[in-house]
């Protein structure tokens, strides 16, 4: 059984940082699942099974939250009392929004023209932007501990991540 009061980082024995070793997380995740997974308790009592189910689901949730950069940054802010995705405040810089809106229009045009290469180029540009924001976030969160200043970049990263998924789906539809 795991300690449900621990935060995601503590659960895996990892430092509370944005930049971190994904392989170490993978390793710790597999080890922990090996201990708590319901398959280990299939022949056990109902209570053992229920605990295994809850522990394993908790470990999966923690792993997901740390594996993804957007969720990880969001979680780090949350640990410092900042809710990045509050429904009452969804502001983003206007120039950022305008640039992404343009990209969406370009992407729609590429799909209409069935131009898979043009679509891929937009995806690449989005990914490059995201990588830049991640570098910035690592500096702000891990070095400067400037959590308030990280709020806007986290929102931008989340927005780009959604855009990336949509572009991937469009690319998939083009390929099919």
């Amino acid at each position, binding site marked *: 059984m795991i300690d449900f009061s621990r935060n995601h980082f503590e659960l895996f024995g990892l430092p509370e940082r944005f930049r971190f070793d994904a392989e170490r997380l993978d390793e710790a995740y597999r080890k922990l699942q090996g201990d708590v997974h319901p*398959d280990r308790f299939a*022949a056990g009592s109902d209570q053992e099974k229920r605990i295994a189910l809850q522990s394993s*689901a908790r470990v999966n949730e923690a792993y997901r939250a740390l594996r993804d950069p957007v969720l990880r940054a969001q979680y780090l802010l949350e640990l410092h009392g900042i809710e990045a995705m509050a429904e009452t405040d969804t502001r983003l810089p206007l120039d950022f929004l305008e640039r992404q809106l343009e990209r969406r229009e370009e992407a729609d045009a590429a799909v209409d023209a069935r131009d898979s290469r043009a679509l891929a180029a937009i995806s690449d540009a989005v990914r490059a932007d995201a990588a830049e924001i991640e570098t910035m976030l690592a500096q702000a969160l891990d070095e400067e501990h400037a959590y308030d200043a990280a709020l806007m970049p986290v929102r931008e990263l989340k927005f780009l991540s959604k855009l990336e998924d949509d572009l*991937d789906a469009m*690319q998939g539809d083009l390929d099919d």
Partner: protein
Amino acid sequence: MALFQISEPGEAPIPHARRRAIGIDLGTTNSLVATMRSGLAVVLPDEDGRPLVPSIVRYCDNGVDVGFAAMAHQADDPQNTIVSVKRLMGRGLADLSDARRFPYRFVDGPGMVRIGTRAGVKSPVEISAEILRALRMRAEASLDGPIDGAVVTVPAYFDDAQRQATKDAATLAGLPILRLLNEPTAAAVAYGLDNAAEGIYAVYDLGGGTFDISILKLSRGVFEVLATNGDSALGGDDFDHRIFCWALETAGLPPPTPADARLLLMRAREAKEMLTGHDEAPLRATLSDGTKLDLALTKETFTSITQTLVGKTLQPVKRALRDAGLAPTDVKGVVLVGGATRMPQIRRAVATFFGQPPLTNLNPDEVVALGAAVQANKLAGNREKNDDWLLLDVIPLSLGLETMGGLTEKIIPRNSTIPVTRAQEFTTFKDGQTAMAIHVVQGEREKVADCRSLARFELRGIPPLAAGAARIRVTFDVDADGLLAVAAREQTTGVESTITVKPSYGLSDSEIARMLRDSFTHAGDDMMARAQAEARVDAEQIVAATQSALAVDAELLTASERAHIDAALAGVKSQIAGGDHRALRAAIAALNDATGEFAARRMDRSVQAALSGKRIDALS
């Protein structure tokens, strides 16, 4: 059982301390049962040595036939001989785009479609349970006792309703089910453990009626499913059907009778199988009106009439790779599963797509059952060498709720690792609203109407507040079988409304109870046989233990005590041969009673033996 308390440390007191664990591949066309023997997974064949059971059930005038016996009558009694029932699991009549293909008397109703037979109206769950029961009996005969635990496989792309229906069928068949396991994952376990495989693998599983693609990462004993996709209504059956349509068209025949249709589909399947090793296959049949059909199907024609079907399998492959964030070249090996992957055009298409020939060093018919047996053995708690491995599987389709405007809000996205729990908060949209309708759906589409409806329920007793003020938390829990449970709770007052999703398309608990009762009355012998088998195993164990104890420690008994035990022993032995499990249980109890004092004395002696020759300080 007092006698069992005496055994040397490290020695198993019972000869069959291993649990009887089996893996079952419940297929569209064929089913299999496998178990672990001496560290190896083996398929259990029937008396004639045949490993496969055709997944065919025939309701006869006096009982039910399963397998080859039923298969022999599929053309002359098509309406009572049910084939490919897996395609109907968890499905309503409206879901079956190909309903006209089946010659059955469908009975529509709320939830799952049912079939009218001479034995009454049967649900796909009951029909599948007949197949599972036949496999259970085969395993019990082969393993000489009742089954302790079973893993039953399902297509990875099965939705919640189809999974629940399969689990219900296992319950109905009297199988203690340990886990539902995804078929491609089972195959990956069998392949991966055998070959000590490491890296990214794709499992391409084209069965009789379902198609799955799973992308797995194998790394130091962890089998991690990264993504899965598929089509739960695409399989070898569809290739048969293409040949069938081609034959009707080529010969210029009108729509055939149910019996003729079944005959032609059988011939189509034979032609398909022949084309795996030949360039041409004959297709000959005499129809009920005397019409003679004599056609020849070439490999080229077959390939061209099934091209779209082959293409239909590649779309899910692309989507699964995309979800896993991988390219075809990242895949180290492609494992083929399912009899339909023997078709050369499938192998060619897979080789072209992945840029490498698929792995064919395993039997595509057996690998799923073998993997399931390995998993069952582990889950049942039997220890093996190298059993320190772990399976991490995913849900195939997103789970969500209906929101305003008939749109879907996804709560758990597809390819989430299970078990998984996720919650989301919703609010009321009207002032003073006191109830909220919750509609649970599964699927990828935006509109609720395009997704599968799993359940509807209502949360009542919400305190009347201004619109948007109430906070309702809806929690989705998916267990290790991939089955969903949903709970809703109003946060301020804690009004709880909980539902385990299995209604509209599955069967309700009371329906299962009714079917179980029916199966007791119709097949009461079956339960009796199980009870008898269990009692017999216990009896044999206690007889063996008593005899070996008497051989060692007979001098602990007086002559009259010995006579008493001998009489009780004889009583058990005489009841083993008889068919009355209650009498046998009574005899076992009498023997236990007679040996109680003997066991206590033996215990004292073994404790003394253990203590003698040791210094006191070594004991503290």
